[in-house]
């Protein structure tokens, strides 16, 4: 049943309390082993990822843009779904950590020949990889791979179906923290296709775990999951109401194929109702920042004036993505110790 009240606010039950031993992502000492989802990770760990990323931001500005943390390690990018931005930033992050990187576009090769995902994994394990960075169109694919891979291999989820895209969420948290310093007291509005968005699911979990005051989702019912309020969000159907006093406005990418289907009548009507313009942004907090995971459909999700305007932090998100991915990779490989980032 769809929630009828717009203000229902139930927190997801498993966000903070999961005991480490039951979480596939953590080792027996509660340290990050895989990075599959924000679900089940506590505030301390998410903060550690942000702090570690902070310590890596300087690396990109050096003449020699490398640190030797993952020297001799082999990282394989396993992309079962095409991606430019995410794959490139993962590659760059791995290279800056001095790892050897192998990028495989599998959608076209093995699976079309009937090789099962497990067979593909076994073959790659035989090549002595240390980490898989996985993108797959099935929700749960990263969990599946982490469950079935050899114990010495770490798995980082680069997006699985509609489930989770945790590094994207963490780079968004990093961007928010850079601009807002802390999460408590923040009102964050997420606008657009929540239903199909792994980014939104991860952002909602991360924001609630990090203590944001209020997470809102704004979309027509066709783009909202059933029982969306159970994720710990307030639901709005009206953009201006939803971004009222918001400190952060996150616009989601709208896949072109949703247009003209029964999901939405047209780009025109979508932009009329949910497109972000300077005028509409007036409703938000005066210091509000505008984010977008990219790539932007200009004139659909937002005006160019907003995308290129002073409140937009969209390009910063991309560059912070490298530092955040460096942090996650080095933590999952056990090459940074807790608190190292603070020294």
């Amino acid at each position, binding site marked *: *049943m769809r929630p009828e009240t717009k203000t229902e606010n139930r927190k*997801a039950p*498993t966000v903070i309390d999961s005991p480490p031993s039951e979480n*596939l992502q953590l080792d027996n000492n509660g340290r990050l082993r895989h990075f599959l989802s924000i*679900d089940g990770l506590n505030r301390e760990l998410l903060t550690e990822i942000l702090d570690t990323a902070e310590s890596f931001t300087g690396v990109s500005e050096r003449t020699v843009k490398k640190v030797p943390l993952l020297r001799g390690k082999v990282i394989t990018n396993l992309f079962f779904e095409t991606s430019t931005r995410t794959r490139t930033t993962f590659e760059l992050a791995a290279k800056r950590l001095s790892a050897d990187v192998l990028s495989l576009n599998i959608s076209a090769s093995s699976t079309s020949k009937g090789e*099962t*995902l*497990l067979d593909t994994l076994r073959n790659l394990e035989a090549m002595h990889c240390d980490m898989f960075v996985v993108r*797959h169109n*099935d*929700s*749960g*694919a990263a*969990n*599946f791979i982490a469950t*079935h891979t050899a114990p010495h291999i770490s798995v980082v989820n680069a997006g*699985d*179906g*509609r*489930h*989770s895209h945790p590094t994207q969420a963490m780079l968004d948290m990093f961007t928010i923290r850079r601009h807002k310093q802390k999460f408590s007291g923040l009102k964050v509005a997420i606008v657009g296709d929540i239903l199909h968005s*792994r980014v939104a*699911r991860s952002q909602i979990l991360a924001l609630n775990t990090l203590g944001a005051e209020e997470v809102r989702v704004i979309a027509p019912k066709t783009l909202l*999951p*059933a*029982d*969306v309020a*159970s*994720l710990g969000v307030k639901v709005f159907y009206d953009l201006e109401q939803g971004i009222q006093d918001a400190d952060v406005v996150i616009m989601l990418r709208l896949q072109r194929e949703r247009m003209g289907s029964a999901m939405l009548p047209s780009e025109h009507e979508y932009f009329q109702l949910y497109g972000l313009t300077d005028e509409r942004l007036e409703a938000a907090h005066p210091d509000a920042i505008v984010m977008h995971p990219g790539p932007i459909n200009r004139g659909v999700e937002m005006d160019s004036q907003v995308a290129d305007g002073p409140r937009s932090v969209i390009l910063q998100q991309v560059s912070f993505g490298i530092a955040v991915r460096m942090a996650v990779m080095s933590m999952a490989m056990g090459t940074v110790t807790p608190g190292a980032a603070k020294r």
Partner: protein
Amino acid sequence: MTTANKIEIINGRLIDPANNIDGQHNLHIENGKICAIDQPPAGFTPDLTIDASNQIVCPGLVDLSVRVREPGQEHKATIESETRAAAKGGITTICCPPDTNPIIDTPAVAEMIHNKSLEIGYARALPIGALTQGLEGNQLSEMVALTKAACPVMSNAYVPLANTLVERRALEYAATFGITVFIRPEDRHLRDNGCIHEGVVCARLGLPGIPEAAESVAVARDLALAAHTGCTIHFHALSTATALEMIRTAQHNGLPITANVAAHQLHLTEDDIDGFNSNCHVIPPLRTKHDMDELRQGLATGVIGAICSDHQPHEPDAKEAPFPSTMPGISALETLLPLTLKLVQDGVLDLATAVARLTSGPAEILGLPLGQLSIGSDADICIFDQEQSWQLSADEMLSAGKNTPFLNQTFTGQVTHTLFQGQVVFQS
């Protein structure tokens, strides 16, 4: 299998819901038939005596939906492997949906399945005839010929009829000849590519959802056509409280409507999928606790007349993939009775009603003289120890499919003997 012509089963608590019997009675069997209750016929000397002290003696279970995967998918299971597993579960009659390869839309395929099961001799496999040729939803199958070839009922399996005119004609034709039609109610557009109940867990895991309305919309349509055509419809594998309520009302209004539920729907909910447990990937999907509780109530009140296993054995690879890419279904023959007995332990059903939902209930739906211990009926008998605890292990499962979310769980209540047509086909 032991061959014995005359068997007596003594000292057991006999539960035979069809004949309203529940008490201590001895049973006598000759030439594969039940020949006497309590007093043996004059001059009866048993070749075999089964002492069923402290045990329950009931009719062999009748399971309304069992995929044996033969013909066509023998890498998953065979008639032999699955009827043997059925015998271990106390089941002596299994109904096989028509989505085999080739499809059960000709008498030859139907007869092959039926005859082969009788030759092997563990249990009776009754083919369910295809409602439309090739299950394609266009042309009616030769229903009368299929009925003569041992198909007690017709069904379009898990391929919902898209065209309501074809459905109307199929139900009219079936009604002409008094044929019951099994329907798995599902609106294929609302189902879309969903693989999990559209609800809280679906929202969190981002798996494509199947709304409750996918079932209730179909039930509403099918009930309207049942009223229009007068066809007897049996709804297979209910999953939602809403559909249950609609069926209750239809029954109340006198429509010839029955329903079954798969045993796992009475014990699992959407929450069990957390962590992407592919052994909980079933169609219809596991729903909410409210749905589960209502289905349990529907069973107690009799709106749902039968519990089936909805057995779907798979090879390991079919479940070893990311959740949406795994095959749905549970290997469930060996847990049908224990999961039903768990409802007795949970206080949902009394023992006699539980037995009825596994024996006389499904037999009545099929319109066959099975699931009863009447004099002269086939000696299909299940004997179980209600107190015996045991653990389900893959090694000890006889089904070729080990795909079950109940692995390593402890159950109370275990089959000790199964007799099919007067032969002991399983003994623990």
